[in-house]
């Protein structure tokens, strides 16, 4: 059966986000591109199993994530090595991108356990809901919530985020709107 142009268009549209997810998981751009490549091939091959009208982005992220973990299983030794030098590689890649903030975030993310890293990336950066992230990771919603919460605490610690340096809420013209929820 042929794939529809719409399927291809949605696939193209998802590539930048998939790459960012891949880089977040692997901390390596070339490995991320391998993952995206595999994801595209698998998505294309199994496009029949995608139900039109459902969330294609979540479907693609699920494929990429599965691919990531199956590669890890295959290359166990390489992964052990990668874990050991993760932070230093991350620093190099960050520098290459030329932003101090980027390097900081990469290094910080690299220090999180894998399950927390993917949870905070899916919810905090990719824009998935807790429910979607739970589907992608095949765990309960509560599990994702607690992983995200722990990841937030760890990242706040690692990045030494300081409330005094937090940007003021934009809508707070009189400086009081931040408290309206209380």
């Amino acid at each position, binding site marked *: 059966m042929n794939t529809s142009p719409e399927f291809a268009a949605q696939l193209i549209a998802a590539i930048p986000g998939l790459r960012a997810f891949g880089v977040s998981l692997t901390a390596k751009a070339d490995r991320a591109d391998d993952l995206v490549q595999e994801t595209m091939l698998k998505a294309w091959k199994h496009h029949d199993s995608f139900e039109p009208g459902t969330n294609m982005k979540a479907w693609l992220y699920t494929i990429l994530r599965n691919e990531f973990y199956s590669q890890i299983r295959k290359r166990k030794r390489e992964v052990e090595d990668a874990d050991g030098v993760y932070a230093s590689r991350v620093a190099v890649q960050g520098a290459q991108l030329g932003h101090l*903030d980027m390097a900081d975030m990469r290094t910080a993310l690299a220090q999180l356990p894998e399950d927390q890293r993917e949870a905070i990336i899916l919810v905090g950066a990719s824009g998935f809901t807790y429910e979607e992230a739970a589907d992608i990771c095949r765990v309960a919603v509560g599990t994702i919530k607690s992983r995200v919460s722990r990841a*937030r605490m760890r990242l706040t610690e690692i990045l030494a985020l300081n409330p005094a340096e937090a940007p003021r809420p934009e809508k707070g013209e009189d400086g009081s709107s931040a408290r309206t929820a209380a």
Partner: protein
Amino acid sequence: MAEIHDNGRKSGKNSKTKAAKMPGFQPHNPIHDMLGQKLKAYYAEIASEPIPDRLTALLAKLEAQSATGDGLADGADGEER
């Protein structure tokens, strides 16, 4: 048909301090905002990189195969090491 899981229907909804448990009711946390902004910026930065040629080439190949009704040929992942 997939069943919809309604998370709100589980036990314990009745007695607990309801308002404090309501999603979106958390007091404003500037640190979370800050972290959220940094995470999104990090992600957006990677996502804004140009798509590597090999991926656009792969897509073109897949589309061409699909158009000719070939399905997925084995050579599609030519760059595998």
